[in-house]
C-alpha cells in the first residue's frame, strides 16, 4: 500500500547522491586534464 512512498524516498535519496558523485568526479577529471594541458 505504501510501496510508492518507500520507493520514491529511496529514489529521492540515491538519485541526487548519484548526480553529486558523478558531477564531482567529472569536474575533478576536467581540472586534472586542464592541469596536464598547462604543463
Amino acid at each position: 500500500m505504501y510501496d510508492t512512498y518507500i520507493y520514491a524516498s529511496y529514489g529521492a535519496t540515491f538519485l541526487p547522491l548519484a548526480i553529486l558523485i558523478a558531477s564531482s568526479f567529472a569536474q575533478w577529471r576536467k581540472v586534472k586534464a586542464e592541469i596536464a594541458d598547462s604543463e
Partner: protein
Amino acid sequence: MLKALENISALYANPTRFMQLAARLHAPLWALALALLAYGLFRAFQVPEDYQQGETVKIMFVHVPAAWMALFGYSFIFFASVTALIFRHPLGHVAARAAAPVGATFTLIALVTGSLWGQPMWGTWWVWDARLTSMLVLLFVYLGYIAIWQAIEEPTRAARTAALLAIVGFINVPIVKFSVDWWNTLHQPASVSRLARPALHADFLYPLLIMGVAFLALFFALTLTRMQMEILRQKLRVRRMRTNQGA
C-alpha cells in the same frame, strides 16, 4: 590530545602533503562508504513492519541519516571556516567550500524524504512547524554559502565573506536540533540521541546506525574528492595568472 591535533593540522597545512595523503585515502574511503551503504540497505530492507507505521518505517533509514548529515555537514563547514579565519589554516576554506554541496544535497534529501514520509503518516506533505521550517532555512543558508563563492570573483574576498556567513548561519544548527524540544511540533522528538534508553527497538536501531555511518563515510569520501578538485583548481588559477603576467 589538543597538541596532537595541532601537530596533525600543521603537518597537512601544506596542500602538496595533503594531496599525497588524500591520494592514499581516496580509494579505501570510497570502498568503505559503498560497502557500508550496501550492507546498510540490505539490513534496512530486512526489518519487520513497525506496529504503528507499517512498511513506511523503511523511509527512516534514509531520512534520519540524511538529516544527521545535513547538520553534521554544516557543523563541518562552521569549524573549517573558523579554522581558516582565526587560525589561518590554508585548507580551511577549501574544506568548507568542498563540503557545502554535499551538505546541501543531504539537507534536500532530508526535506524530500521527510515530506514523502509525512504524507502517509501525518496526512500532509508539509507543515510550517519549527523543525521543518528551520530545516528549510538550513537549505537556504547552504545555498547562500554556495552562491557567495559563485558570485564573488576575487577568491580571498569570496572566502572571507563565505566564512562569515558560515559562522553566522551556524546559529540555525542548534535551532534545528532542539526545535522539537523548544516548540510544539508535528515532527516527533529525538528517538536515537537518548543514548541511555533509545526509543527504537534494536531491530530498527542497528540498521539505522549502519546507514548513519555509511552516510558519514560517503560525506567524507565526497568532501575529500571535492577538496582534491578545489586544490587542483587553485593550482590551475595560479598557473594561468603566472602565464598571463609572463605574456
